[in-house]
């Protein structure tokens, strides 16, 4: 998948097609990883009592941060388990979702 894909017909033959590095799943994992780290850090070290009271006693930064980190790991796993197969010729298959 990513920004490339299987060529369609002859006009595309012989063109260098990129794949893999730009997998959107990795992009999502990276963003959620960064968000998760910041929020978890804030939840652990930057949460005042006033903050806690605001969100009704739930340390929402911490929980959201942990949740985001988990989702990031899931996306990386998905990427590892179902990597992108770059089709050179209009071969069937490729990345099945």
């Amino acid at each position: 998948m990513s920004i490339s894909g299987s060529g369609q017909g002859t006009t595309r033959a012989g063109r260098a097609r990129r794949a893999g590095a730009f997998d959107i799943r990795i992009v999502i994992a990276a963003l959620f990883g960064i968000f998760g780290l910041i929020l978890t850090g804030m939840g652990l070290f930057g949460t005042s009592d006033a903050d806690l009271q605001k969100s009704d006693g739930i340390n929402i930064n911490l929980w959201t941060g942990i949740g985001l980190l988990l989702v990031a790991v899931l996306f990386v796993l998905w990427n590892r388990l179902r990597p992108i197969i770059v089709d050179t010729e209009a071969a069937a298959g490729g990345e099945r979702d």
Partner: protein
Amino acid sequence: MTLVAEASLRLDAGFWDYTLIAVYFVFVLGIGLMARYAVSDSLDFFLSGRSLPAWVTGLAFISANLGAIEIVGMSANGAQYGMPTMHYFWIGAVPAMLFLGIVMMPFYYGSKVRSVPEFMLRRFGPTAHLVNAISFALAQVLIAGVNLFLLATLVNALLGWPREVAVIVAAIIVLSYITLGGLSAAIYNEVLQFFVIVAALFPLTVVALDRVGGWEGLTRGVRDATGSTEQLSLWPGNELAGFDSSLLSVIGIVFGLGFVLSFGYWTTNFVEVQRAMASKSMSAARRTPIIGAFPKMFIPFLVVIPGMIAAIIVPELAEFKETQSAETGVDYNDAILLLMRDLLPNGMLGLAIAGLLASFMAGMAANISSFNTVFSYDIWQRYVVKDREDGYYLRVGRIITVVATVAAIGTAFIAAGYSNLMDYLQQLFSFFNAPLFATFILGMFWKRMTAAAGWTGLVAGTLSAVTVFVLSETGVLDLPGQGSAFLAAGVAFVVDIAVSVAVSLRTAPKPAKELVGLVYGLTPKEDLQDPRDRNDAWYQRPGLMAGIALVLIIILNIIFF
């Protein structure tokens, strides 16, 4: 839609909030840059080379629609009308999305057209094509401007930036990733945006539910505030539809919202259909709206429910709901923002702001990316400068993106002066879709329908919708709530069909061989299938997945009946 841009909405964004927002924008622009390496011809730029997997196009499909109007508007409806707002998702979107995937997509994708107007051209010839292409292009630029204006209003209210600065900064960001990466960049950003919005709204909903005392607390709160349980059940939704009679209300919701308005929007709006056209095979194209239907079912829990809770636990909004007084300084459109202000600490606040900004920008990006396709292929290449090499049209696409963005900035500044005008514009454009759906569905299934019928039906239908709208605005017809929009769409649909049939019977049809691939019954079954899809697993079969989605919708309707 107007937001109350007062200090009451000002959020206390701190260093880490801005950091989260900044990180997000680095990713948005980064996707544009990465997508640029893969763009090498105009099909790449406009349709992502028809290469994307279905889950990506499916999420982009609903994300393109998950803009300002959806999030702010539907949480506002939730605060005002309660549970019946769910109809906009369960009745007003999912069935039409399934219909698009099962019935219409084989013709769109199979005929290899590059845009919805191009389908008009092949089925009905140049007049219908030109009417459709120009009205669509015009509407998109204006709506892009409206989205931009809403975004600026939000940034102004939340962060205190001057509106003009916000308009221009947002326009430059959207412009850079679309001119760089074309539709791929727009689609990848929509997918990213989808997850960011969910990550922002889900914790907000959890905290809000906790604060109000769980589902029990929510139902008690709504009952106490409204004195009845009407806002807690889906049907008959009198308040939402604006009819006193429950029977009329149900008919209005099912036929007006569920059939004409939503089928018109979801099945013929190129902003949506373009996402499916970018997928890599027939089956992936058909699955695009079907995959989108699943998250679409559950988004209202993150939008409508917080809206309902806001009307209970935010004191100003609760007072507004009771008194409708402008003195409270807030209105329903502020529901989600007030909830963010009251419930989220720094950190989550930054994530929530990033999510909202993302959704508003994606709405505009979707308008611009579909506009440049229609302009380049359907107007410029077809009628102005024909037969040039592909690179030329790619350059035209990039240049016109800049022009469209500048035009959208202009529209945004006009809209800033006339906030009511903006509401009218949005409603008017929704009227283009109802007759379009009538023309499409008749044209796809009735081979006798002629070219002349194509454009006369479209024009007559649109004019009749506008007529109903003007009549209700001037008070000749009196329908509060959404009734006038339902009626206008219904009338447009019926008039379009009637005119199309009448004209078809008096004019000569196109020869059958020109309609292969465009009309049901003249298209061999094999043409509607794709050899690449033979080995699909069960969860990749469009029919089965659509069936599951339909059953889920019925279950949801029973649970919240």
